[in-house]
């Protein structure tokens, strides 16, 4: 399975998390064998397409959602309702059909024997969950997660909230230097909103630590044909627009031309 495939799968289980977050689980052994941490699926609530065909309403684009968990075919998505597409997904219940295109993207590079810092913000949490499962046996991991308020944070080693409602008060990057020193970090993975990733990248660059970021981007095709999701990647003098859905979503933080974003 080199290229993303199109499938429809029934929701096996739906779990409510805090506020606008929820989990959708599907079952597909072949997909379970294929998906890597950091990869994602372009997903859509099939109901929304059926609605549109029956009632003459207009169908909408698929939305990229990371693989949150993969237990050999039991695949989980952790989703936050933020707009139309995720709202349609939030209506799904067990038994409803999910449309999937994927697995898409490159995924995180996997190492062994490292002292790793995971930094996630808001909806950057799901790919990190899958990633830490992949890394846990052969690395030391410290995971920091931040969000706007209590409803945006989830289990990890260190929690930050912007409103101070739980965990440490402030933005998660604020605690990065301290932890890098404390745990003698030599590898960073991060995922979250762009400004957070940019701050994190600046810190790792200053300290000279290897750092992989998973970037967000608005997508149309999600499979590399439209070039709509491109971001500037390369050196200051020699960069190109690479596709988040194909060459990404994971890039070396050093190579992302943050100043052009």
């Amino acid at each position, binding site marked *: 399975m080199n*290229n*993303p495939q*199109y499938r429809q799968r029934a929701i096996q289980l739906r779990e409510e998390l805090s506020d606008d977050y929820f989990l959708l689980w599907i079952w597909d052994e072949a997909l379970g064998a294929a998906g890597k941490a950091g990869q994602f699926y372009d997903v859509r609530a099939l109901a929304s397409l059926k609605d549109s065909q029956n009632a003459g309403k207009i169908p*909408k*684009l698929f939305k990229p959602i990371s693989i949150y968990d993969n237990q050999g075919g039991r695949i989980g998505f952790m989703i936050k309702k933020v707009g139309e597409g995720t709202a349609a997904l939030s209506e799904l219940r067990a038994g409803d059909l999910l449309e999937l295109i994927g697995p898409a993207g490159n995924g995180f590079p996997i190492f062994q024997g490292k002292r790793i810092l995971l930094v996630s913000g808001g909806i950057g949490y799901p790919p990190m969950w899958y990633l830490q499962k992949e890394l846990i046996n052969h690395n030391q991991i410290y995971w920091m997660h931040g969000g706007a308020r209590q409803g945006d944070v989830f289990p990890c080693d260190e929690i930050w909230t912007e409103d101070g409602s739980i965990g440490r008060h402030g933005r998660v990057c604020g605690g990065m230097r301290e932890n890098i020193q404390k745990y003698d970090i030599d590898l960073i993975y991060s995922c979250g909103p762009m400004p957070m990733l940019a701050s994190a990248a600046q810190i790792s660059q200053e300290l000279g630590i290897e750092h992989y970021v998973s970037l967000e981007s608005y997508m*149309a095709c999600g499979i*590399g044909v439209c070039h*709509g999701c491109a971001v500037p990647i390369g050196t200051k003098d020699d960069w*190109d*627009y690479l596709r988040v859905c194909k060459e990404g979503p994971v890039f070396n933080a050093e190579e992302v031309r943050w100043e052009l974003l």
Partner: protein
Amino acid sequence: MGTAIKDNSKIRPNANELLHSKLGVLELKTPLTVASGTFDLENLEFFDPACLGAFVCKTITRLPKKGNPPPRLYETEAGLLNSIGLQNPGLDAFIAEKLPVYQEQLRMPLIVSVSGSSIAEFAEMIETLETCAGISGYEINISCPNVENEGIAFGVSSEIVYKLVHRLSALTQRELCIKLSPNVSDIAEIAQAAEAGKASSIALINSIYGMAIDYRTGRSRIKKGIAGYTGIGIKPVALALTHKTAQAVNIPILAMGGIYTWQDALEFIWAGASAIAIGTANFINPLAAPELIMGLGKFLLEQQLSISEIKGKAVI
């Protein structure tokens, strides 16, 4: 129709015969193609390519093009805004890397979409491509709303279109399809200029100028501001321009703009299209192409009508 013919017609043609169409010098197994920039080999993972009559690749330019800064996409109530800016690896890389893969994998005519910044550059590109095997035709893109052509706004001047097409038609026997912009006062005039220059077909429409703004912050949803608008919301416009153009020229038309379903496709064929392409629909429904051909074939079979029998026969 005389009774003799009526009797013959008892041997009902099958869907394949009814779906057959012609675009200029090309025989198409089905009238369905794909809109440049919205479809590539990745999509062929989703369905059997036999539903497509031809394959149109992403526009290439002489030199590599970086494309426009992000964000490049925004979905509106009824369509899509894009500002890709013709990002592509350039002609040489296309010939060295992409073309061989197409030659190996495509089981249908390949139409190469090209854009240039001057008549000379267009001509140079066609001359180069003429030396390559495995190409059935060219789609001459003089209508991308997301790049400023250096010096000339090709798509809006019928004089320049005539000169360009006249020059290119002398260079090739392959299909020469001119892709027009909807952002003009009189598309018929431009189409006639292309016909006079000996184009073998017309493609329309490319994206319409469109824009969207975040109402809270005033920030343009697309970095460059004005973008290209496509999808279901432009269907009525594309259909009107197809009809207008079909009234004005005799060469065949490859129509696109908001075609999502077989019913949409039929509207364009009635209006005068010999072939149709799906663009934005590929993003909305990965199976849009096979579903379109299934539906179209079923309709033609039920009605015992062929593409050529309904083409341009809209009742007004």
